[in-house]
């Protein structure tokens, strides 16, 4: 069952029409990719699901698309868009828009007054005005109306997963109500209001700051900054400052609309439905009078790395990070197999047998990173006492890998594990929809099923990936050493 899917999905991800390119064996599979008149990309995959369709939408609006002052904007916009639209959840869209604008102005004035340390009376008056405007806004709108409509379809609650290069929106509904569901989602895309956006942005920024203080975050940041020269990933790893200025609603709306251009979205529908009928319905809902415009791709070309790079951090945490820039054409599924294998090997060797490391983490691609993002190995020593030993052991291991590559027999075993995982995804239409949406939407967070070619590629990469000239090392020295050196 799974094998024909492999071909079908491979063709879909290649960005071509599935029916036209997949081999004859898989051609009978009813998997179809089509583009509506407004430029939205849809992938339909019918399969038995007790009259349910699973909907997964990948929208290319993530942290990578934010400018330096817009940290957290993408996620905040995505969350705020679930609080209704100009057509859902308001009794008067014009009046609400005016009040929201007014609220923005008062907020800005209040913030300026607070920074300038104005008199208490003036601040109190501004706060009262702000509260009053907010209350008037709330009287005009209902933040839960949009979601209530979804629930009454009945559809499951929208699940939002933010990423660096986009976000995923998932839900499900009965097949016979899919048109109502699609209308609501189309409306979210076109008629956004972003209710409660400012509060959400504050929460998102606070969370980003918290995450940036987690163990290992500074090392990962150092790795990205050292390994990459121009990739936006360098920037998004830096947390927003505590006093980052708020972003005006108009700017947020403009950002949201720009990135919700239909050509930047990919929707996968998996479940029990008649594809012809659904295609017809979607064609009527996602319609545009003008010709679809393709979104400007802001992919950045990273200059080639010519030699090894090293960064030393002063930290109380004995952590060691190694990153390699894989070849530009490296297959992600092959990298994933390689990472699985290396994780197992390093855990066995460094943690269990030699006891020089507390934990090992291997990532096929730097979290959220695009094409030039490094293949990462993260090692945490038991203590600084072991750190030197760990550094030497790791260096020896990677030099051996560069010389000899990964053993084909061991890689074969990894493929069995990955294949089982992939079958698990095929089994569950919800997972299938989300994996496909990411894959077709060009976000490499999940591999395609491994094939014989994957193994070949992984074997070839086993030598190429660990090349010294492409390596970036982030190592650590304890604060005491630093003090001594200063003395």
């Amino acid at each position, binding site marked *: 069952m*799974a094998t024909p899917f492999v071909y079908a999905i491979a063709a879909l991800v290649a960005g071509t029409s599935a029916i036209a390119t997949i081999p004859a064996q898989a051609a009978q599979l009813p998997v179809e990719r089509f583009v509506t008149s407004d430029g939205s990309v849809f992938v339909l995959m019918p399969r*038995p*699901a007790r*009259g349910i369709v699973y909907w997964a939408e990948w929208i290319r609006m993530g942290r990578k698309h934010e400018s330096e002052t817009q940290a957290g904007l993408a996620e905040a916009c995505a969350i705020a868009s679930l609080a209704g639209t100009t057509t859902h959840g308001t009794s008067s869209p014009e009046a609400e828009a005016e009040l929201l604008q007014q609220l923005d102005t008062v907020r800005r004035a209040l913030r300026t007054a607070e920074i300038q340390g104005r008199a208490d009376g003036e601040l109190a008056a501004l706060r009262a005005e702000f509260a009053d405007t907010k209350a008037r806004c709330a009287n005009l709108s209902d933040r839960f109306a949009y*979601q209530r409509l979804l629930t009454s379809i*009945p559809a499951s609650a929208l699940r939002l997963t933010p990423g660096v290069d986009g976000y995923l929106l998932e839900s499900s509904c009965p097949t016979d109500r899919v048109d109502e569901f699609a209308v609501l989602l189309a409306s979210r895309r076109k008629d956004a209001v972003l209710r409660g956006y400012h509060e959400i942005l504050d929460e998102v920024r606070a969370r980003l700051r918290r995450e940036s203080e987690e163990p290992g975050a500074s090392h990962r940041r150092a790795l990205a900054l050292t390994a990459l020269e121009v990739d936006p990933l360098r920037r998004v790893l830096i947390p927003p400052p505590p006093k980052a200025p708020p972003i005006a609603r108009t700017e947020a709306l403009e950002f949201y609309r720009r990135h919700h251009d239909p050509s930047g979205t990919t929707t996968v529908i998996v479940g029990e439905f008649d594809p012809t009928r659904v295609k017809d319905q979607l064609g009527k809902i996602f319609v545009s009078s003008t010709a679809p415009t393709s979104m400007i791709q802001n992919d950045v070309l990273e200059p080639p790395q010519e030699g090894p790079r090293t960064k030393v951090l002063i930290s109380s945490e004995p952590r060691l990070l190694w990153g390699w820039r894989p070849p530009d054409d490296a297959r992600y599924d092959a990298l994933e197999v390689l990472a699985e294998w290396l994780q197992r090997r390093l855990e066995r060797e460094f943690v269990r047998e030699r006891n020089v490391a507390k934990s090992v983490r291997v990532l096929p691609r730097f979290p959220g990173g695009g094409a030039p993002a490094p293949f990462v190995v993260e090692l945490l020593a038991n203590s600084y006492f072991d750190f030197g030993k760990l550094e030497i052991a790791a260096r020896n291991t990677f030099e051996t890998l560069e010389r000899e590559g990964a053993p084909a027999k061991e890689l074969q075993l990894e493929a*069995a594990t990955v294949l089982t995982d992939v*079958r698990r995804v*095929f*089994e569950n239409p919800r997972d299938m929809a989300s994996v496909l949406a990411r894959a077709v939407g060009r976000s490499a967070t999940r591999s395609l099923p491994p094939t014989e070619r994957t193994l070949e590629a992984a074997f070839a990469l086993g030598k190429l990936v660990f090349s010294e000239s492409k390596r970036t090392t982030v190592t650590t020295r304890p604060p005491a050493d630093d003090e001594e050196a200063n003395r």
Partner: protein
Amino acid sequence: MTGCNRKLRHLASLLAVVSAALAACETAPKLQPAPIAEEAPVQPQLARERPRWPAAVTSVGDNGLNYLLIQGNPFELARVTLWVRAGIGRDRDSKPGLAELSARSLLVAARGLEPGSTLAEELHRLGARIDLRFEGEWVCFEASCQPQDTEKLARLLFGLVNQDAPSQDEIDLARAQVLSRYTTNFAELRRERAIERLLGEPGPNVALEQEAIKSYGSTEVRLFVGIHYRPNESYVVLQTPAALPGPEVLAKIPTIFAPWLKGQKLGDLALPEEVRPLGFVERDGKTTEVTAVLLSPTPAPLGSIAAQFVWQLFDRDGVAGLLRKRLDERGFREVMPITEDLDTGRHRIRTVRLEVDSERTTQLLDTLRAAFADLGVSDHGIAEFNRAKQRAWFLWDEVVVDSEERARAFARAKIYANVTDVDKRIQDELESMRDRTISRIATERFVPVFLVRGPLSARPRDAADLPVPKVTIATVLEESRIRPILGERAELQAIAKAGLERAAAVLGGRRSLQELSTMQWNATCEYQASIPIEEQWTIALPAGPRTRTRKILGSTVVTERKPGETVETFNRNRRVLSNAERAYFELESLTNPGALFALWAQKAHTLELEGRLEESGRSLLVYVLQLPTTKELRIGVDEENGLPRRMDTWAWRPNSVPQRVTWILGDYRGVGGLRLPHYAEKYVEGQIRGHQTITYPHADGVERSK
């Protein structure tokens, strides 16, 4: 008539399964692939037509092991799940965490099919996986693999539960896994334990569980496994694609598990305890989190959808239902309730979590109570009734489509309610749902209790406090060894003497220590597995009475060493300590370096140099104090500045091996001409246990002899 036919057909299919099973093997029954549904679902009232989905087939082996077979085309993988009645709910009050440790030890100790291989290696070779999940009294080993490997996976699972008791090393490894899980999810686990206490479950707090887990050895694990891992209290759930792995493989599964020996029937462990309606836990911040906890309204734990249906009337994703209505009415329009399902030690529960400004805590509690009361009295109206019904049915459909959830739901229905075709039962129940059933279900199944977490100012008047100790778990003491110092005797004596003199000098001078007649200090102790303790120590030097007054939860316990005996007094109760307890008290009284060095200066004790210890970049000279009771105390003095930095001693508990206790001393400040530590961290066997904040009561801290 139709009902009779259904019964006959059902019986016939079961008989066919049983006879086929008996034919296959003398000792164990064989399972046949399930027919693709016994009956077409009848659903005249519902608009959409559903395809027929496979029902489950059950069978029981000679050893009492229950089998449940679910087959169908939507499945790509084979799943073999072993449900054993050995979950967290089977932990005795005195042995918290033993069930989890036992299950993980079995996973660590299990062997592969090939000689010398481990379970992990074998699973890796097959591309298979075994996940561990706890659900009330049950533990589930959920295994999945490619269909052709089903038989091997079943053999691995059999080997897992039918192995020799795990060794001490294997238990130690499992223990590390459990403790690491606690460290990762500590905040959430602590909240869950608070909920358990509200429900009257004997769930201990996480820290206590963690402490207890450290003391379990192979005997405890062997006993637990021997009693609980028995086929007559277990279920094997097989879920496979229709064609693979084929009937002959399925028939072999019961023969694999046949040698598993039957055990005694397990009795109920605990009597139901009283539910506390409102609990309070202090938490920093400006907001209060209120969690409404409900007993078992989860979808179909008993093969029933009634509770799920009533839940839809109460709350639909936080945006509709009686709760939303009440929240909107009472001015909580911006508050979004978050629903979560949890497995506690005894129950599957559902919680609704809401966060509001602390000032509005009481108002929110009233609102929540009113919303629950509405369930019993409101007239819901046909439209609302139908919406709830449609949504309950839709959610059940989602459970059936999800292969993992489906296997679990069918197993639960079989285990708790002996229902095989749960899909059909739910459909029938939903069709016959009437308005009058709602208030009955609301009363029987919805038992709301509330957990409030917020600042002290938000504590509701009638709330019971749930003391939750503040702990730090992650810190582990650096493992260092005392190395002997090599050299001539005279040279060693010189080093020893210089070290002691330097320590005495830095603590205030030898003369000051010699003149010390009474020493007092207060210690605020915050240890894991314990609520905060206040201790007051008074020591008359060199050999006078020693008194410790310990305040704990408003009670006072006084321990006093008098000539000839040491006595503990608690209210009117008086107890003379045993010799071992007395010796331990003696040791504890010396864990303040001021007292210890005063005794040395007054020549009441001698300190002998044992060696040197390198730790955290410091070099410590380690001295041993040998007491008459054979108990010993080691003190590490910083070679560079002379400050005592570390003390090592031993703690005893009845029926367990002694544990190494280490104090790391810091924050030295001047007190009445002496320099004494104000902060000490306590480690037990290298793992942090908590800390003491030490203060000295008098202005000068110490009294001197005239």
